[in-house]
């Protein structure tokens, strides 16, 4: 049974147990345009909430993706190296970036749920 959370910076986390699948939302991929490269962290890395988790590059821009929660990187989506366009095609599915093992579940409380995120989008 999984729960999906969002951030105001357009990241999503799909949490099941103490593993979170992290990536960017459909709104973000559309804003960025064609994604050409995703720079992912190494597995085993410990990340603090708010630190840079990944970098997404389109032709004309590079954006930092910040860790919405603290955790340890247990898996990265290696398929993105050959096919970065997957992030555009299926951002919250096959276009996931990183799987984190959560170290502080209390941090989830400050994230947005789907409703709150939709409301946020309407203000942009």
């Amino acid at each position, binding site marked *: 049974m999984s729960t999906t959370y969002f951030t105001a910076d357009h990241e999503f986390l799909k949490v099941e147990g103490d593993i979170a699948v992290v990536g960017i939302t459909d709104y973000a991929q559309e804003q960025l345009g*064609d994604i*050409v*490269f995703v720079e992912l962290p190494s597995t085993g890395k410990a990340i603090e909430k708010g630190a840079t988790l990944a970098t997404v*590059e*389109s*032709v004309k821009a590079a954006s930092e993706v910040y860790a919405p929660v603290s955790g340890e990187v247990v898996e990265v989506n290696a398929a993105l190296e050959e096919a*970065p366009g997957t992030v555009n095609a299926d951002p919250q599915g096959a276009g996931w970036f990183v799987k984190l093992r959560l170290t502080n579940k209390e941090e989830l409380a400050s994230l947005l749920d789907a409703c709150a995120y939709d409301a946020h989008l309407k203000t942009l």
Partner: protein
Amino acid sequence: MLDHVHEAQRPLAGGRALDLEEPLLFEIGRTEVSGVDLDEPAPHASQLGGLERKMPIGLPGLSEPETMRHFVRLSRLNYSIDAGLYPLGSCTMKHNPRLNEKMARLSGFADIHPLQPQSTVQGALELMRQLADWLLKLTNMEAIALSPKAGAHGESCGLMAIKAAIAAKGEGETRRTVLVPQSAHGTNPASAALLGFTAQPVPAGPDGILHFEDVEKLIGPHVAAIMLTNPNTCGLFERDAGRIAEAVHAAGGYFYCDGANFNALAGLTRPGDFGVDAMHLNLHKTFSTPHGGGGPGAGPVVLSRRLAPFAPAPALVQDGANLRLVEDGQGFGRMTAFHGQMGMFVRALAYMLAHGGDGLRQASSDAVLSANYLRAALSDLMTQPFGDRACMHEALFDEEWLSGTGVSTLDFAKALIDEGYHPMTIYFPLVAHGAMLIEPTESQPKAALDAFVATLRRLGARALAKEAAAFREAPLHAPRRRLDETQAARKPVLRWTHKAG
């Protein structure tokens, strides 16, 4: 080594009248062909220590007529200043005088080695001294570092001098912040970060320029320097620059000025008068040395008295009747091998000699006048992010006027290509949405400015009439249609590779 390229792999051949396709060198050249005749080497016992190349290189050659044809045909695929108005904001695409090319090629300048005994190159050193003198008088500064190879290199130089000055005061640990306006060119925060500083953004007011009260709040003993561009990247003069400089100096910091836009100021105002400590000059912008498809440039840095002791090697000093380069123990060290871009010094000095003080003043005046003329002629059609008011040498528009038309700044620029122009600078500065930055320079006849305005107005009308589909197809008449930059970044192919079979 190179086989004949298979018929099916040949690029689309031929052309249409004078529009000519040209294959890659690697598709037409052969390793056994040369366009240079050399005498056979005299018989000798090789002393290469067993390190002679064993594998072939794979470099094709062409005879002289083939080489001429290859590169002439390539050249015809380029737009150029000589061919027409090139209104790239912040690049100063002025006329490149051919006298400069002739002078740079004089044997006495081109055929001298940087490490010849200094007694044998006094003419070259004198040229450098004269160039320095002109630049110091134009800027009212005390000292100059001639060696930086381009603008960004000059920025590094200025910031390094500032860092060295701060260290000399023992404040290297406490002064770690550099204030940088949000409108700054990317090289500014990049240069600061490379030297270990933290770049702190400074917001401009709604009128597009910095306000003393807002900047004053950010100044303190933790600030190493403020980096300003004046006029700024929006083409607007930073009126509070002088007051800001005083505040920064009072707090023990330094004022770096990005001199990319000096074409608006030369002869009309002097950076030294508004408190600048270091400023790079782009000889390939303000002083007409050619852009060459992307380089080479030259970025000498003028310095205030406070920073003069920290200038890098080499320094040019008067030694009795002679000039001498001091190459060691100088300032913060060395930034490049040898002495700087001598070839560009000759060109820039030829330009300055031809203009004289009054001529340089006239050039800047005409540049500012021409930009305002365009601004006024377009102000009823195209929106300006900071309101319609007097600008300096470039006019900034945004995409507000295109909203609802389906035509983006990019589409508009590509359509301009079909009209026979190189587009203006687009999407810079980032503080404007869909920026269009137009810099005509002083090199345009009035008729050319009027023709450009007429074209922009015609295109503008079509955009407002919602012909978006046509704009998205542009350009149609250039040697290439729009190119797939996404593919180029996802699957980079950075060289030709021989395919076997």
